[in-house]
């Protein structure tokens, strides 16, 4: 009967919440056993699909002949727009991302047709046989071009409070500027991948490397013209996502499903790296104009932002992303009079998409840079200016706690965090030491900066804040866990398994982690917005509690005790005076015909948002953190490196501290990479020239600061009733990397004795830094 041994009656379970527990797949990662989509064994007749792409940024396709492609060796089928039985659309919201371009192309890299052949080499070779004639139309590649031409996806959108313009005009000081901020390629190590297996009737099973299985399901249904219930989407794990698999998985999944249903053969799409980088969206690059008024202490009295974002050729999620850039234009600062206007530029480049932080980082960098510039003009330590402007602390009586979107910040702890961090990092002493040191070092200059982070947690599209879970206990006492969240490396699965282990008080290895599957938990939201463990943890808690309640009621009636007198202890259940092994209670319950399976559901409370009036409470709570970064630059070449990083981050009461530390370090490095080495470069015709790791440089091993000290804020506790009072950690740490950018600025400023503001643009590549150094040297001599 009971194959697995009874849980040990030790005093604590392995894998309780708040404990360090390694990633559930660690041992499989290191041995190559962990399976990703392209590793799934396929039958020999599996087709490989190549997606042929537009080579023009904006053009009419006057003629496209694929007959030679059809007749090439190994080719089973070629699909164009006319072969789509349902809707020719893979967009998440607006119906503007065709599976295959139909008559007009809107960017280089837009998909034109799909070739399925026995091997990918055959498919790729065949695709070159198509004859395509383009008639070029005017193309806007950059933000400047789009703004100049008024090429916008929609009317500019504004969030405002008070009268910013008058406040700035009447301020003791004011300044203004323009800041260009580059985009970012996700560079998940595993490219987009989808494998479709045809079934009977309309059925199709799609393995998709996606953060959003429900949307892939919906998209495949829409494209094939079949109901959602015919489509099952499954994903065990992704080789990285970072937002890049929130919507970009729709096209490969749809193409694979189309081919599979057309040919009745399994079919697979795996973009190679270059295709992936050309065909999929990136973080939005921004141009931000700012005008700010402030007093002698640097206290901001009024500020205006005009944020222009390159959205690319379609909406994708740009509306919500640009909104979030606005939501984070304040960062940790109270802005008494404020106007933030957002321009969503339609350009003839690939549609920009979600990327860790989802617009928030862009809004935040600009704010931090403005603070630095204010400090600069006043000759102050930027930290002093930051402090003057913070939102009121959590329990402080103050009016300085309302955001530009009229939400009250109830949980601000940034001052406490920053004070601890300044002390532990010796910020002040190092700042003066570095300035002294720079005087004696003509070529190498060091710089130091601190930057805080406040990041709003919840989908700002309120209805997305829902999650589901499915938990079974089998009668041998083993537990099957499933929920709508996806695993992309962030440790979601282990954290949620900890929740189940905690509720039932069993060792975590009793909890089977299973692949996300739309047939088990339906209508899920993307694993995004850092909400994965908040929402799926809660839904799982809900499911587990349901079963636990049934078990308790059963035990109570069987043993004639009150439910209040039942307690789940490690590996066992105390029922009155008696202790029963967990396994036995489960088995007894089964024999007594008690249901041991439950669904769970969660909808984040308190949130609401009214877009028309730009007001509401879009966020359940905020996550906070701060970082101090020290850098060195070479003033002859602009080369630079990060020397030391100190981080203090608030994850509430961490579900799993080692996992959270991993998110923080990885997030920081990714954020710093975005603002330093990672440069996306398009030519004038709209061809991305940095489409592989040979030309697009994410941080490598030696770029990590040799001295990195990361701490979880010990006092951290979520004021809201989140899963075991933890806080989301996926996105916020990325923005800690802003301190690296500001530190570079500090180092550059030293060449003109801190008299001229370097006004760096991002990414601060060696070129950007050298040019700033030369500018400052020119100005000061």
């Amino acid at each position: 009967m009971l194959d697995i041994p009874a849980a040990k009656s030790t005093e604590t379970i392995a894998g309780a919440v708040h404990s360090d527990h390694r990633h559930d797949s660690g041992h499989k990662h290191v041995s190559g056993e962990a399976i990703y989509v392209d590793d799934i064994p396929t039958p020999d007749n599996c087709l490989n699909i190549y997606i042929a792409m537009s080579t023009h940024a904006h053009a009419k396709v006057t003629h496209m002949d694929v007959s030679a492609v059809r007749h090439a060796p190994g080719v089973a089928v070629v699909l164009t727009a006319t072969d789509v039985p349902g809707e020719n659309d893979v967009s998440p919201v607006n119906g503007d991302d065709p599976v295959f371009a139909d008559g007009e192309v809107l960017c280089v890299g837009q998909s034109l047709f799909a070739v399925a052949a026995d091997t990918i080499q055959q498919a790729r070779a065949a695709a070159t046989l198509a004859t395509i004639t383009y008639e070029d139309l005017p193309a806007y590649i950059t933000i400047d071009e789009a703004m100049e031409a008024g090429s916008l996806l929609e009317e500019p959108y504004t969030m405002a409070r008070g009268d910013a313009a008058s406040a700035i005009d009447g301020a003791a000081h004011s300044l203004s500027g323009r800041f260009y901020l580059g985009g970012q390629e996700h560079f998940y190590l595993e490219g987009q991948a989808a494998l479709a297996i045809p079934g009977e009737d309309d059925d199709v099973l799609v393995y998709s490397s996606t953060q959003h299985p429900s949307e892939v399901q919906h998209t495949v249904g829409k494209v094939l013209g079949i109901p959602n219930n015919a489509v099952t989407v499954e994903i065990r794990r992704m080789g990285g996502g970072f937002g890049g698999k929130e919507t970009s998985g729709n096209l490969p999944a749809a193409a694979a499903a189309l081919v599979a249903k057309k040919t009745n053969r399994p079919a697979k799409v795996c973009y190679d790296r270059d295709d992936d980088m050309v065909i999929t969206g990136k973080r939005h690059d921004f141009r931000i104009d700012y005008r700010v008024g402030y007093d002698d202490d640097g206290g901001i009295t009024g500020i205006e932002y005009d944020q222009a974002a390159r959205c690319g050729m379609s909406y994708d999620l740009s509306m919500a992303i640009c909104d979030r850039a606005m939501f984070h234009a304040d960062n940790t600062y109270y802005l008494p009079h404020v106007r933030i206007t957002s321009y969503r530029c339609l350009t003839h480049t690939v549609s920009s998409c979600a990327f860790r932080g989802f617009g928030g980082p862009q809004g935040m960098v600009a704010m931090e840079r403005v603070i630095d510039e204010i400090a600069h003009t006043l000759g102050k330590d930027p930290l002093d200016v930051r402090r003057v402007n913070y939102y009121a602390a959590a329990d402080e009586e103050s009016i300085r706690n309302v955001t530009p979107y009229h939400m009250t910040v109830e949980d601000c702890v940034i001052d406490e965090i920053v004070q601890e961090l300044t002390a532990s990092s010796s910020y002040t002493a190092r700042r003066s030491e570095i300035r002294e040191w720079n005087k004696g070092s003509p070529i190498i200059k060091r710089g130091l900066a601190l930057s805080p982070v406040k990041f709003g947690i919840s989908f700002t599209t309120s209805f997305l804040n829902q999650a589901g879970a499915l938990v079974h206990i089998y009668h041998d006492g083993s537990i099957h866990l499933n929920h709508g969240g996806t695993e992309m490396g962030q440790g979601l699965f282990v954290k949620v398994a900890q929740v189940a282990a905690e509720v039932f008080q069993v060792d975590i290895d009793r909890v089977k982690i299973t692949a996300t599957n739309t047939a088990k938990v339906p209508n899920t939201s993307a694993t995004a917005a850092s909400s994965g463990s908040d929402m799926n943890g809660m839904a799982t808690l809900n499911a587990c509690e349901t079963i636990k309640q049934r078990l308790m009621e059963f035990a109570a009636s069987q043993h004639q005790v009150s439910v209040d007198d039942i307690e789940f202890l490690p590996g066992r259940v105390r029922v009155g005076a008696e202790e029963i092994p967990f396994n036995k209670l489960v088995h007894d319950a089964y024999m007594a015909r008690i249901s041991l399976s439950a669904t769970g559901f969660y909808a984040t409370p308190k949130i609401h948002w009214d877009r028309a009036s730009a007001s509401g409470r879009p966020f359940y709570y905020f996550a906070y953190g701060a970082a101090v970064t020290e850098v060195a630059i070479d003033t002859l070449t602009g080369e630079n490196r990060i020397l030391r990083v100190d981080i203090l981050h608030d994850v509430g009461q961490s579900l799993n501290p080692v996992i959270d530390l991993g998110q923080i370090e990885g997030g920081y490095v990714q954020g710093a990479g975005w603002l330093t080495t990672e440069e996306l470069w398009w030519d004038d015709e709209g061809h991305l020239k940095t489409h592989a790791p040979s030309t697009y440089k994410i941080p490598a091993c030696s770029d990590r600061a040799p001295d990195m000290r990361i701490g979880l804020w010990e006092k951290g506790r979520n004021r809201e009733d989140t899963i075991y009072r933890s806080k989301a950690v996926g996105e916020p740490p990325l923005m800690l990397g802003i301190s690296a950018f500001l530190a570079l600025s500090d180092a550059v400023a030293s060449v003109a004795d801190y008299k001229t503001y370097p006004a760096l643009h991002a990414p601060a590549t060696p070129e950007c830094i050298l040019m700033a150094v030369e500018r400052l040297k020119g100005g000061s001599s």
Partner: protein
Amino acid sequence: MRDHGTFLLNGERHEIRDMSPTTTLLNYLREDQKLTGTKEGCAEGDCGACTVVVSELVDGAVQHRAVNACIQFLPMLEGKSVTTVERLRGPGGTLHPCQQALVDTHGSQCGFCTPGFAMSLFAAYEDRQGKGLDRDTANDVLAGNLCRCTGYGPIITAAETMGDLPAPQWGEDRAARELRALEALCHTDTVKVASTDQQFFAPATLGEFAELFAEFPDATIVAGATDVGLWVTKRHMHLKTIIYTGRVQGFAHIAVSDNTLTIGAGATYSDAIQTLAEHFPDLGELVRRIGSTQVRNAGTIGGNIANGSPIGDCPPALIALNATLVLRTGDAQRRIPLEDFFVDYGVQDRKPGEFVEAIEVPLLENPDQFRCYKLTKRFDQDISAVCGCFHVTVDDGQVSSARIAYGGMAATPKRASAVEAALVGKAWTMETCEAALSKFSEDFSPMTDMRASSDYRMRSAQNLLIKYFVEGTEPLSTTRLVGRGSTIAGGANHA
């Protein structure tokens, strides 16, 4: 001549015949052998997800090296032994210390990069008899493995601590078997692997190599395939005839005599780096920053030159060192100054059937007068935007000779002749250098591309002369952020 290739894969003998000889090792593993532990992240040697360990007999002992499976053609493995991640664990599934250390330090998140990291660590572990790595060594060993999730910290800790774990019980036994199996694969026949329209030759002697190349003057020579591999995986070229240098005996010879260092065209960076660093410390540092461990384990200096790229790093360094190129057709040798080899973009002074045999570099009286600077967006594994190499000699305060060469500044690696002329005969002072800056525009009008703008190239190239001058009197710790002589990050940097 043999009509098939033979190599070991995870201890088992594999024969390759009747297949496209440009099949990459990675595709063979994943598609033919269904060994999916080895991942593809880029197919261009830049991410390390496909890292495997290739072992071969060198002077009777087994040498283990991490390479990128994505740009190795299968027949290049003739007579070698390939170990993939599937083979690391011991009997019963015990993790190898490099794997266990990664698990213990939380060194994986999404895990897609992890098999590659494990293999790089495994190679280093084998190389160092089971010792952990210090941080700088770890950075060099792992420079060719990208991870987008972790931020690297835990992986570096794993590299440092793997030596503290118990050594694998199964190691010695496997090593002994591998040695025997490799010995059994030794032979000196020319190997040919062919498909219907492609052929690949792997001759074992220089004579046969020369003969084959004379017979097929249109053949593509392949050495490490760190360039040619990408022609296939990126440009999707269909190579008809390939002649491989890797088995040619004596071709990787490195020797010093008569004040000349001779580097056989087949010597890999890894073969050469130690000798180079001994005689030309800054060239050692430059080579440390070429590609990554995996790339240096496969790529050759001869290939770097023959490839003729304007942004290869060895040419400007070797031109500044006044190197001579030894070319050979059949039995006939021809010696030319290296700088004359680069005629124009994509054009070299190489006749049909002629190949690069060796590079001869005169040794320097004062090796520290020779300096190289490689400017990139990222320090490790990045192609130069500008590479500046300097050798200026000074007698009695006067510049007696100057050889300055740049990569990335023109259509070929090129000397800064006007700049040199402005220096020679002048007092070696900052003023002289500053006066020479205006001459750069006579020598170069660099282009703008994704690596850097024309302005940056020009400005930084000029500044490198200033840096070179400053380094004549100031310690490297005041001018360098990484590598040789740098102390900014605590002093341990490759001192």
